[in-house]
């Protein structure tokens, strides 16, 4: 029955693919820069590569947050999966990373396991920094890319560049997502004794399945609910989101791709002299930061009590 402990990891991987896959290519699919089928295929490949080659840092950080056993890890990941599924059902872009950390913390507290508060502080401060850094990166990227884009004299060349750069940005985004977010799903695999590389690979495949099979719904929710961008802005937003997520995968902290995407859209807007940050957007980020981990933490506690008795 030991293999049952792996199921929440697989489920969360699929859910992450459905939710965050949409975050990385939603805006570009919505403006028509890339076909959804192309986006799905390319990102499902590159997300595995990212998870396999660059996921170790995040896995080490999440692994060091608590000293949960295999059962505790699986319950936490199960609670995180349910939280994100509920958010998808309500068409709310939720954060998998925040759900997982909230759930790990909930299970750790109820089971009396050690919580390394310094690691939690590091993670929480990076969550706060995520949308801010995303805004800064996209603000600067827009200015820099615009200098080169202005040198493209006609529409045919502009379209050509936008089309192919969008494909490259998509691959980069998927790679970054895999590298950064695989840690969220890898807990149960690591606690069953799999190596970091192998856990990354299995986790990457699960995310890939989520992208391939279940990302359609959220693609259009995210792509059209954020703001309708022009092709150039959506390209800059995609590259900036990828860079932001990639930086945090190097630091080794899983972050929310959705909140990064919102931050980059705001940054692009600022660079164009438009105010795209409404009170509602800010509230959404704050709610994501606070409500998601609280909800998944509470759910994890309830599940832990329920399943331990069973």
């Amino acid at each position: 029955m030991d293999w049952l402990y792996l199921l929440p990891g697989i489920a969360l991987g699929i859910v992450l693919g459905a939710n965050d896959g949409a975050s990385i290519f939603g805006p570009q699919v919505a403006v028509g820069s890339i076909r959804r089928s192309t986006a799905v295929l390319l990102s499902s490949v590159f997300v595995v590569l990212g998870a396999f080659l660059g996921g170790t840092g995040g896995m080490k950080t999440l692994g060091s947050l608590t000293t949960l056993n295999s059962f505790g890890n699986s319950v936490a990941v199960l609670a995180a999966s349910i939280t994100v599924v509920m958010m998808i059902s309500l068409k709310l872009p939720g954060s998998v990373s925040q759900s997982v950390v909230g759930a790990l913390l909930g299970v750790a507290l109820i089971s009396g396991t050690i919580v390394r508060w310094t690691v939690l502080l590091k993670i929480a401060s990076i969550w706060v920094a995520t949308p801010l850094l995303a805004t800064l990166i996209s603000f600067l990227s827009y200015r820099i890319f615009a200098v080169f884009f202005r040198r493209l004299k006609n529409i045919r060349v502009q379209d050509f560049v936008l089309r192919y750069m969008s494909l490259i940005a998509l691959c980069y985004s998927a790679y970054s997502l895999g590298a950064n977010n695989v840690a969220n799903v890898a807990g149960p695999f690591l606690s069953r004794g799999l190596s970091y590389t192998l856990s990354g690979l299995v986790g990457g495949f699960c995310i890939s399945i989520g992208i391939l099979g279940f990302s359609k719904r959220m693609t259009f929710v995210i792509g059209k609910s954020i703001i309708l961008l022009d092709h150039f802005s959506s390209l800059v937003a995609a590259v900036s989101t990828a860079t932001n997520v990639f930086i945090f995968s190097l630091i080794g902290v899983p972050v929310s791709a959705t909140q990064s995407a919102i931050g980059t859209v705001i940054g692009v807007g600022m660079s164009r002299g438009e105010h795209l940050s409404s009170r509602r957007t800010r509230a959404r980020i704050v709610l994501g930061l606070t409500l998601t981990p609280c909800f998944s933490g509470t759910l994890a506690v309830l599940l832990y009590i329920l399943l331990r008795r069973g």
Partner: protein
Amino acid sequence: MGWIVGKKEQEIIKKVLEHLDVMSTELSELRKLIEKYLNHEFDEIEALAEKVRYYEHQADIARREAETMMYSGAFLPNFRGDLLGIIEAADKIGNKGEYVADILELERPVIPDLLNSKFLKLYDICVEAYEALKICIQDLFEDLEKIEQHVLLVEQKEHEADGVERCLIKQIYRLDISNGHKLQLKELVRSIADIADRTEDCSDRVEIVSLKRRV
């Protein structure tokens, strides 16, 4: 390998420019028709009107081909809509040319000789506006930065056409002819001037596209 170098896009650009060239030919045939009409050489009117209609039809075919090709996946989606709008707006210029030819061929309005030079002047300004628009649209595919100066030229020509149009209408209403005749001539003047108005509408669309591309 065509998709790498944008073969579809090149074909559409070729078709769009072909559409504009056919309309240029239509307008030059209409110029001949107006000239013959004003010189009272009515024998060739029907043949020339037929030529105008023929080129208008050819322009329609080129437009439809460009539109069909566009939705086979060339260019990025939001430019497809913009370009479609530009082609449709340009096509309306050709439609107006055909309408003017119809008025002359079917209604045969009597144009007093003293208005001849003004009529020709008005028409020539409209054609000059159209030729500036053609360059404007070419600029979309060659050099976006030059669009503004050609849009300004179109606006200038349209403004000039407005002046001649007003002057002609004023002259018509001072002539000792029936009110019905005056209205008929006014309709002809307005229809010719509409060529410049529609040209300006189209150049406005081109300008908006170029502004949308500004980053």
